[in-house]
């Protein structure tokens, strides 16, 4: 912890008493330095989040934001007993569309993050080797990352176009498919299309994070392993992987959180397709488009809760150090 040092050194340098008051003075300054940022974050993050939770417990509608009545947890689950004795369940928690979205989100996130991690590691291993044109390759893989998500969605939508798309043309010429496929419109292939684009777009990010981890592994370890004649595959699994595990864990959680909240790619690439609709997409649909503001709020609150639980479990079980303070 480098931050500890100035105070400690100053105390010996200037004298204990003035050192202490200096520390107090610095803490006071720190408070005023942090205050504007904290107020701004409260206004754009904490307050809207609290309001969303509040809306989810009311029957507010989009056109009448202040006319909502408290209805408790009815948006989540409402049990009605009809006069003839049958019990009816209503609310998000028994809504098949919501559970379909949850399943889509989980499926998308797990598959995309696993693929990106494996591919990212491969790309990072390539970039970690010394060869001619390495700088060029590193510049090339930055391009998918730099392209706005909407633009990549449109680019791929065009490449995946059923009639004129170049990917169908390629696959036909190579004999991989016998007839043109409507990748984004067909419910069987829509998820593959989304995964393809997401993996293309975010593997560079993963590769760069893995590369940063790989570059911290001292070279002489590899030299020693080479002299001992150990199989490179064994070196990777026994030496490299354990050493870059902390960097990898952090990269995976960031990617996972990003994947779990995905909205833009799916909204543009496969609009209104039940087979790709994620939690974010269905929440916004209810919030803004279907005039079920409170219902959508309940769904976005659930999304937030799911993510919060997931992150806590991940950090706790994986012993991930995110703050960067412990490692320094």
């Amino acid at each position, binding site marked *: 912890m480098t931050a500890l040092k100035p105070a400690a050194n100053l105390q010996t340098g200037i004298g204990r008493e003035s050192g202490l008051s200096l520390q107090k003075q610095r803490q006071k300054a720190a408070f005023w330095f942090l205050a504007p940022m904290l107020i701004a*974050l409260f206004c754009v993050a904490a307050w809207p989040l609290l309001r969303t939770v509040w809306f989810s417990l009311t029957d507010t509608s989009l056109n009448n934001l202040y006319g909502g009545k408290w209805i408790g947890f009815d948006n989540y689950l409402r049990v009605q007993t009809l006069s003839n004795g049958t019990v009816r369940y209503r609310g998000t928690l028994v809504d098949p569309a919501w559970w379909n979205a949850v399943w889509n989100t989980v499926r998308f996130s797990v598959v995309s993050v696993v693929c990106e991690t494996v591919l990212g590691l491969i790309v990072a291993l390539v970039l970690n080797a010394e060869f001619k044109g390495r700088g060029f*390759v590193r*510049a090339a*893989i930055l391009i998918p990352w730099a392209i706005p998500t909407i633009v990549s969605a449109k680019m791929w939508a065009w490449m995946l176009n059923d009639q004129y798309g170049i990917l169908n043309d390629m696959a036909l010429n190579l004999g991989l498919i016998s007839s043109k496929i409507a990748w984004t419109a067909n419910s069987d292939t829509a998820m593959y299309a989304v995964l393809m684009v997401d993996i*293309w777009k975010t593997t560079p*990010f993963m590769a760069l994070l893995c590369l940063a981890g790989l570059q911290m592994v001292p070279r002489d370890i590899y030299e020693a392993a080479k002299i001992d004649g150990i199989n490179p595959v064994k070196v990777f699994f026994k030496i490299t992987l354990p050493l870059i595990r902390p960097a990898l864990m952090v990269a995976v959680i960031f990617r996972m959180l990003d994947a779990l909240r995905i909205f833009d790619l799916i909204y543009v690439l496969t609009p209104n397709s039940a087979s790709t609709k994620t939690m974010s997409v269905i*929440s916004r649909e209810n*919030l*803004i488009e279907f005039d079920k503001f409170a219902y959508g709020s309940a769904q976005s609150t659930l999304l937030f809760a799911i993510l919060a639980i997931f992150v806590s479990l991940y950090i706790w079980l994986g012993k991930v150090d995110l703050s960067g303070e412990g490692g320094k």
Partner: protein
Amino acid sequence: MTANKLLKSVAFYALVVVIVVFSIFPFYYAIVTSFATGTALFEANYFPKAFDWANYKAVLGGATFPRNILNSVFVATTTVVFALFLAVTASYALARVRFRGRGLLLMTILAVSMFPQIAVLAGLFELITYLGLFNSPFALILSYTIFTLPFTVWVLTTFMRDLPVEIEEAAIVDGATPWIIITKVFLPLLWPALVTTGLLAFIGAWNEFLFALTFTSSESTRTVPVAIALLSGASQQEIPWGPIMAASVIVTVPLIILVLIFQRKIVAGLTAGGVKG
């Protein structure tokens, strides 16, 4: 032995070629398409047949697209300047001053930068209509602060932690207040970090879609991603692929150039932040 070695290096370079082609091809194909018009658009051409600027003229000569670009530039720049302004002092406090609860505060800031944006959408919608900002660029500047501010604070904190202690000590011995230390001592050293962080935050704001889609309602207030997503042709069935690709190329080329110029710094910033910009 040598044959084996040759085989290995051929396999390695084949892998390199696959990576490069896979990375570059979609954008290359977008450029090829953006120069195609008429029937050439509906043939799968791997190389450009002719350089026809008609799509670019259509997009840039259109009623709203130039305006959309200006909107994006204004929103992204203002957001970044605002975030950096607040983040410099805050990250000094977080990186250099020891106080109770600092670790918790850092974790909270990181958590906010990872917020699912949909979770605040309803509350932000209320706030924005209450302030009368709906369908104005300021609605976007306000809402983008939720990801640009925590990101800039987080990355600048990691940069500031690495500045040498001795400089600060010397300044304190000379009687400099924390404010003087930030503005006169640290800021000149932080320029590279500010450029990197600012650029990453700019890319994030430039690419944002969910808030821009929700908080704008007319064509002239849209930002570039929304404009591209909603670009439509004369009829519902006819998607104007040529102009869409031209618009995509127009908004992506400056980003790619910036990213390639600041390549090394961006990689450093990304790994320091660990956050997707």
